[in-house]
């Protein structure tokens, strides 16, 4: 499997089909880190195992998304990139394709079938919920057909919904209060690609600069809402959070509501219009 990935990366780089290949390599202290391979001889650094939890699609922004040109200007086509994607990452990739952040032609997608990844030896809860074991978008898929498929039942979300508003507020206040506003969740998120984030806008000053509860609440609710119908559930935000805030509880709540209200799941394809950018005239939505 690893040999196939290395061979493919080498071939792509040698033929000049891509100028960079994004994958995983051995890091320090038994961890895995993202690898950016520019030379064919470096392709042997690439690895793939169950520790490869990061969503590499996040790194496509720096290669592929360029600001829109000024009127009359020509948009420069960025050089193509190769990337390894797991099924969850492929959903993020679909979101970026659909939002025209990344061009399909500009990316060579090496898909990997996945049985679930582990963080510090622990199987990830999101992998047990994951219903896809084969990437949804790829140029080449590697790996055998996996046997098990997970199921999402939103048990923890439903449990939280069962509490009274006061209890929920207490729960989220406790969680949000730990936030140190490092924005690691945003940086790790493949769907957070704004050049200027609301959190840092000074004119108008949406959020305020205090590291105080109202600002933290604002930041997390704002981010959750901005990801409505776009979050593919890769959980990179929660894994990146140094304070262990359960962001998946927030994002999956929205995903669940979006599916219930509008029958939409993020990242399934790159064609269906997103739920908040479209409407039906005759629909009953309780407000």
């Amino acid at each position: 499997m690893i040999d196939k990935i290395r061979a493919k990366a080498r071939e792509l780089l040698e033929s000049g089909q891509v100028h960079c290949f994004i994958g995983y390599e051995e890091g320090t202290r038994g961890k895995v880190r993202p690898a950016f391979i520019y030379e064919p001889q470096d392709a042997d650094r690439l690895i793939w195992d169950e520790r490869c939890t990061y969503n590499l699609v996040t790194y496509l922004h720096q290669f592929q998304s360029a600001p829109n040109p000024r009127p009359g200007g020509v948009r420069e086509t960025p050089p193509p990139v190769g990337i390894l994607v797991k099924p969850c990452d492929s959903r993020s990739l679909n979101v970026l394709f659909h939002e025209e952040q990344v061009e399909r032609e500009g990316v060579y997608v090496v898909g990997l079938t996945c049985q679930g990844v582990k963080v510090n030896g622990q199987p990830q809860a999101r992998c047990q919920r994951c219903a896809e074991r084969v990437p949804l978008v790829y140029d080449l898929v590697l790996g055998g057909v996996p046997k098990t498929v997970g199921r999402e039942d939103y048990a923890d979300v439903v449990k939280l919904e069962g509490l009274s508003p006061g209890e929920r507020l207490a729960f989220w206040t406790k969680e949000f209060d730990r936030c140190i506003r490092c924005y690691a969740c945003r940086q790790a998120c493949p769907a957070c690609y704004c050049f200027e984030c609301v959190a840092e806008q000074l004119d108008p000053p949406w959020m305020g600069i205090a590291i105080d509860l109202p600002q933290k609440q604002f930041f997390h609710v704002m981010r959750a809402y901005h990801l409505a119908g776009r979050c593919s559930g890769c959980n990179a935000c929660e894994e990146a959070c140094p304070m262990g805030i359960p962001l998946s509880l927030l994002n999956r709540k929205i995903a669940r509501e979006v599916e219930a209200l509008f029958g939409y799941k993020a990242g399934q394809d790159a064609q269906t219009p997103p739920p908040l950018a479209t409407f039906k005239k005759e629909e009953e939505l309780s407000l």
Partner: protein
Amino acid sequence: MATDFEPQIVGFLCRWCSYPGADLAGTSRITYPPSLRVIRVPCSGRVDPLFVLKAFQDGADGVMVLGCHPGDCHYVEGNYYTRRRYALMHRLLEYVGLEQERLFVEWISAAEGRRFAETVTAFTAQVRELGPWGREGKDGREGREGREGRKEGGNGGGRRREVS
């Protein structure tokens, strides 16, 4: 709950239906509570859910978003988007612990002055019942003092901007 509590409500009113509706309530001399602070917007579709969050962050006790009836939008389809956005926003805010009765989205036409007054009265009563948002007794951080203090050139306070 303190009986002398008067809620502060921020209302985003669409320029074509609800704002003239409020005008009609005024010219018809129908009284409604002074708790409502009206912000005129071109369309209810202009009301970014961020506005609502910002209002709650800065201490509003309730937020109203009023627009044209579906099908009557001056811009043809603005309020259909509003409907989808706030259906979702409602559920999200409720989930993070804000009582869903604090956010109110309704369609009020330019001819419905009386209905406007009744709606504002009913909503004010509803919020009064719930008590202050995010002040004493809730998280204990954002007291009324804190909010009053912030008006003196604090974070974003005293800044006047038209939303357009």
